[in-house]
């Protein structure tokens, strides 16, 4: 298992910079998730690490070794691909033996390792079947087994769970997480599903247009997004956002200019920034019914309450926009007239979407 470092990595396709000057290191044994919208360069980054794509510039290190221009077979990586993961003409066991045969391992050794994988991934029943006859979940398990069996320096997974139905996906996530910890594999997992990223990663690397927007633990990304894009991309239900104008008198929200009383500390920071306009964001779980005190509270108009499982949500209108907050489970049927933003969890953004620190 290796520590993987990317040093000013760029990949260009003509005018398009698919990966744009990325520098980051993945520690040994870390579960990294590359997260971002479609086309942001996740797969390209992964292909560079695997050696399937040549970087236009920049370097890649596995521990001390520079591998930037080594062919894939010299890198000892394992990769599970997004679309085709197994050879359809080979039985599952031969698929698993495929990388071992490349290294010329003996028959007994191969048998032993297949048995080992079969035990870990519970493949007993399907070892002798061909991938085409298996459901997607079982296929991805076998693909993972083939990736793990060669004990790679780094495990690369390109949306391995996207073809699997919702229910089985949860189970696979759980297994993947355990396996990764058990074997201590440095893992780079690609997904555009933020829930998957949050539930798997030691560290999430959020990407956009070939660049890293933010890298950090799931908690850090959730609580402390660097910009509006990060705040919006992570968390479900998604963050409430509204335009705001900042003046000497205070802060007003939306077109209607709904006034809101904010902590003096925040107002001070806004004044220092010299901004007249910007945006304010709050996650639904930090927006709760206000008590007597109307500090950081907004009026509730046209409210609708509903429950998803045991969680209760309140959708309401604020200056022409729909906002979402949560209600306590024991709140009864009466709806609050005002909702309060948890002051410690309010995000302030410049009109360009950059986060303004207020702490």
């Amino acid at each position: 298992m290796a520590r993987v470092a990317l040093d000013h990595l760029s990949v260009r396709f003509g005018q398009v910079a698919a990966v744009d000057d990325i520098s980051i290191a993945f520690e040994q044994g870390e579960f990294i998730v590359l997260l971002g919208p479609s086309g942001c360069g996740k797969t390209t980054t992964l292909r560079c690490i695997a050696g399937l794509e040549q970087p236009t510039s920049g370097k890649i290190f596995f521990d001390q070794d520079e591998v930037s221009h080594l062919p894939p077979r010299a890198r000892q990586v394992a990769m599970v691909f997004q679309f085709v993961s197994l050879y359809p003409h080979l039985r599952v066991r031969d698929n698993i033996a495929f990388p071992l045969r490349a290294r010329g391992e003996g028959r007994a050794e191969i048998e032993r390792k297949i048995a080992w994988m079969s035990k870990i991934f519970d493949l007993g029943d399907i070892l002798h079947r061909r991938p085409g006859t298996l459901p997607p979940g079982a296929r991805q398990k076998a693909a993972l087994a083939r990736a793990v069996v060669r004990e790679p320096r780094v495990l690369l997974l390109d949306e391995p769970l996207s073809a699997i139905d919702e229910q089985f996906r949860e189970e696979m996530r759980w297994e993947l997480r355990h396996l990764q910890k058990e074997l201590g594999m440095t893992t780079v997992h690609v997904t555009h599903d933020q829930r998957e990223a949050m539930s798997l990663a030691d560290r999430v690397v959020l990407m956009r247009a070939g660049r890293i927007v933010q890298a950090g633990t799931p908690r850090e990304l959730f609580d402390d997004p660097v910009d509006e894009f990060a705040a919006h991309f992570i968390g479900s239900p998604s963050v409430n956002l509204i335009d705001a104008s900042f003046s000497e008198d205070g802060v007003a929200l939306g077109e209607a200019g709904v006034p809101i009383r904010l902590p003096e500390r925040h107002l001070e920071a806004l004044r220092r920034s010299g901004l007249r306009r910007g945006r304010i964001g709050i996650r639904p779980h930090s927006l709760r019914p206000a008590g007597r005190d109307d500090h950081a509270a907004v009026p509730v108009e046209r409210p609708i309450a509903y429950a998803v499982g045991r969680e209760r949500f309140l959708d309401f209108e604020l200056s022409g926009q729909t906002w979402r907050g949560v209600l306590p489970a024991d709140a009864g049927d009466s709806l609050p007239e005002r909702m309060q933003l948890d002051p410690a969890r309010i995000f302030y953004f410049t009109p360009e979407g950059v986060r303004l620190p207020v702490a």
Partner: protein
Amino acid sequence: MPFHRQPILIPAIVIGIYMIYACGPLLWLVLSSLKDRQELFSWPPSLFFTPDLSGYRMVFGIGEAAETATALGLTDALINSVVISVSGTVLAVAFGTLAGYACSRFAFPGRDDFMFFALSTRMIPPVAVLVFYHVMFSRLGLSDTRTGLILVVTFINLGLATWIMKGFFDGVPEEIENIALVNGYTRLYAFWNLVLPMVRGGIAATAGFCFIFAWNEFAFSTILATTQAKTLPVKISSATGATGIEWAQICAAGVVLVIPVAIFFWLIRKYLLMGMTFGVLGRSRT
């Protein structure tokens, strides 16, 4: 006549007429090759007669028919044709497969220009480059040799072979090689053992096209092959100008010319349509 039958009747008539138009000459050719001189010129042409094989005997130089002054003796030309077409096909398919693979998988500078150039070689009117070939071949000592004609036929087919094979390779997901590459195999291994078996149908279709073009090639052969390397089409056409034409013999030669094409078409009929669409049919993903 019931009205609802009309939609079938009209296409049937159209197709029937087309079939007569398409197959009539072929039938006439086969029948004529079996007729003696008297039957040949009788009007209306007879459908039932005693077959006379002297045309074929003359073509292949068998028995006393071969002694006739007008006998063509096509055996040599037949051997030339087979050697040239088969070799040219093998070469064009081999190189076209490699070039098609490269064009499908690697975005090298000038790839699109190369692909266009490759196809444009097929569109050059042979007459335009004949003189050039003639001069070059006589300098190189390739005039009137099988080697020379094999090169010509390979060249004509290479562009088309590259295009058809690229289409088939495009239909093979890139992951097929990528899986092998990251699992410790070379690209050559992946190409040879994994990708090639998946495009067998494409290779068959390409070979079919190349062979038929090579077999029918006339313009270059007629100029570049003057005596020794004469191919079947050239030899046959040269006989029509001579005095005392043996029509039965000409027709027999025509039948000999058509048979390999027919056999080839029949063998690769499954893949021909794929080849014509440059492998677009049956693609899993572009």
